[in-house]
């Protein structure tokens, strides 16, 4: 059951779970003490899209970072440490392209706090294709010149949603290694903290190109890093589901056992290696769940086998789940959350095996993140 509260999603107490739900027309919070009954907040940033949000709980408090974009007034990053009661926006913008680039920020696709032992470090992936690093908790970001000046840049393309870095995955064991994914361009990796980047797409198909196995140019929709092996990565591609066991140097298909190899979501378990979730769609030309039946698929063996779960999910659903409209929490059992383009948000408190409805009739869900109140 869902009730509505004020803008801050009701009175929060330690141990509550809070979802941040970014949509096409604003940001909502949902809170729950049991991950079954939810209280939905009033909207924040109403009529502005929120394609990215981060709930940074690394320092004993929760800092909410949002990438907000207005069709009229452009993009910006705002943050709050009081559950949205007040929002702070740096005067001169947290992300601003340097003058010599001649570029302007279009959209913030990803806000990704680094690992727990690197407090203050936050990464951003943006449109135009760019990756940014903050060392002050997301108040100011610095452009990675290595990726911006990359010789491949002129050959990178735009997916339907725009040309952007949409996934940033820092290695928790090596602060110099970061993987990013862009559409289109594929996976790139730095081994020197962002000074230089190299494509890592060997084995990932780009069927839409004359050469279906190019060095770069793939449309990787989302990447996720394994919880226990930092060199193991998973990718949901524009057709193709893959795993890499060598930090992206080569990729092998793990799509066998799935009803489709198309989709946008790739989630990795926060603690257990080999455990990932995907939400398949039929095809790039038919972006709906197979047979119109919404389901989550989970693997607990690195993609060798998959299990399908649909308890609590609709059997007549003709909407997609976008790449960042899904998240896991850090609890045990792990919570799995996602939202659809018809504005429905679902929650699972049993590792994605059954779901309840958090909210309905919201605008298109663009991003979902979860955190437990410290």
């Amino acid at each position: 059951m869902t009730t509505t509260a004020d803008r801050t999603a009701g009175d929060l107490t330690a141990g509550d779970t809070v979802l941040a739900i970014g949509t096409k027309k604003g940001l909502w919070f949902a809170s729950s003490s049991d991950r079954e009954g939810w209280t939905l907040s009033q909207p924040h940033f109403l009529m502005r899209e929120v394609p990215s949000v981060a709930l940074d709980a690394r320092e004993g408090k929760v800092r909410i970072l949002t990438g907000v974009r207005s069709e009229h007034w452009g993009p910006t990053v705002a943050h709050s440490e009081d559950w949205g009661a007040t929002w702070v926006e740096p005067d001169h913008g947290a992300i601003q392209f340097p003058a010599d680039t001649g570029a302007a920020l279009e959209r913030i696709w990803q806000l990704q706090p680094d690992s727990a032992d690197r407090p203050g470090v936050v990464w951003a992936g943006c449109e135009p294709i760019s990756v940014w690093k903050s060392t002050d908790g997301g108040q100011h970001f610095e452009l990675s010149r290595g990726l911006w000046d990359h010789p491949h840049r002129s050959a990178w393309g735009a997916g339907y949603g725009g040309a952007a870095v949409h996934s940033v995955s820092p290695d928790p064991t090596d602060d110099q290694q970061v993987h990013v994914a862009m559409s289109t361009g594929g996976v790139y990796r730095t081994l020197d903290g962002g000074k230089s980047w190299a494509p890592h797409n060997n084995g990932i198909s780009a069927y839409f190109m004359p050469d279906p196995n190019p060095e770069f140019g793939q449309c990787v929709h989302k990447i996720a890093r394994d919880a226990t092996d930092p060199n193991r990565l998973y990718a949901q591609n524009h057709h193709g589901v893959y795993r890499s066991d060598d930090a992206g140097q080569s990729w092998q298909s793990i799509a066998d056992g799935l009803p489709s190899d198309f989709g946008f979501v790739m989630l990795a378990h926060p603690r257990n290696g080999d455990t990932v979730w995907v939400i398949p769609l039929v095809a790039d030309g038919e972006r709906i769940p197979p047979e119109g039946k919404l389901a989550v698929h989970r693997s607990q063996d690195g993609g060798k086998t998959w299990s399908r779960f649909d308890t609590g999910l609709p059997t007549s659903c003709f909407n997609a789940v976008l790449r960042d409209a899904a998240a896991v929490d850090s609890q045990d059992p792990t919570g799995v959350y996602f939202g659809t383009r018809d504005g429905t948000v679902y929650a699972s408190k049993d590792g994605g095996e059954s779901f309840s409805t958090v909210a309905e009739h919201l605008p298109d869900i663009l991003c979902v993140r979860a955190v437990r109140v410290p």
Partner: protein
Amino acid sequence: MSGPAEDRSGQVNIRLPRMLADEAGGVRQLSLELRRDSTVGSLLAELADRYPILGRRLRDETGALRRFVNVYLDGEDVRQLAGLQTPVKVGDEVSILQSVAGG
């Protein structure tokens, strides 16, 4: 800068949409002192100096007017004039409005 009741010759009035009042200290109308070579662009730059967030709402970091922000000079869309280079003279009124966009 002064409020509308203090307008005097040598100044230009700027009207803002309701949605941007918070970024301009809560007002929807303000005045800027004109210089001999003032243009729409120089006025927007001066606005941005005083209200940086307002400045970013109107123009991107290259200085370009955002696509769905319209600026009218005495009722004429500056994009149909000389854009941000359009000269502004004493007594002109600059109106900033959001265009019809979104769904």
